[in-house]
């Protein structure tokens, strides 16, 4: 299929999808929908949990993604004392 045609189909697909349809689709797929903020994605994956390898320091890593592509990374020691912040 021609790339331009494909791109048009993709754009039409999302342009024709109402917020309600998008919400239902994501909820059916198992995503949690939050009403307090608009257009943000927060991630809760196993990187957030304790990540450990034998004989190395244990880190907790928290990440939050925003659609503006800004990324806030926070590295913390397992005991929650702050190691450093990467803005």
């Amino acid at each position, binding site marked *: 299929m021609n790339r331009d045609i494909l791109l048009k*189909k*993709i754009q039409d697909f999302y342009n024709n999808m109402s917020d309600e349809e998008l919400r239902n689709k994501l909820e059916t797929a198992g*995503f949690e*929908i*939050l009403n307090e903020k608009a*257009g*943000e994605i927060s*991630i809760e*994956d196993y990187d957030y949990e304790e990540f450990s390898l*034998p004989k190395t320091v244990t880190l907790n890593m928290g990440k939050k993604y925003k659609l503006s592509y800004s990324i806030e990374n926070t590295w913390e020691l397992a005991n929650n004392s702050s190691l450093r912040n990467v803005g």
Partner: protein
Amino acid sequence: MVYSLTGHHGTNKTSAYIIHETKNFIISKNEELWLGDGAYFFENNKKMAWNWSKAEGHKKGYKEYGIIEANIEADENTVLNLDTDFGQDFFHLQREAFMERLGKARFSVKAKKKFFDGEVINDMCTIVPYKIVCQKMFVQLVRDRRIKVLSRVPNCRVISVRDNQCIKTPIICEEGVLK
């Protein structure tokens, strides 16, 4: 042209027997599926299916496993191959549009994983009715899961079959007890 391959599916023994008797796979649907909705196989890789059973057995608490071997067939025009330039280009066009649409929504989304690939692939399959999605990827072995390490180099090819009609003659090719 017909797309045809042998697939291996690792699961617990009870499920393996149910699949074998009913000849029917459940098409799994949830946000964590790598390649979207589908019945999942490793391409001609019994070892990886066994490894998957073992890792899931530890996680879900089953002791006996079964590996299903099946022929997977479909018209090649209904196969989305994410290892090709076309497949990857299509995926990222779709993904960008998906992320842009989420950004315009009047709500926020909280996900358990940082991959939205499955949801993006489901949307691709709405636009083009693919029956099979495949991609080479790295799947953690048991020891990898234990120490939570990953690799960027694929060790298997994963096949997601969205249409049960594409799964032919499933048999139990191996069963046993997990140690």
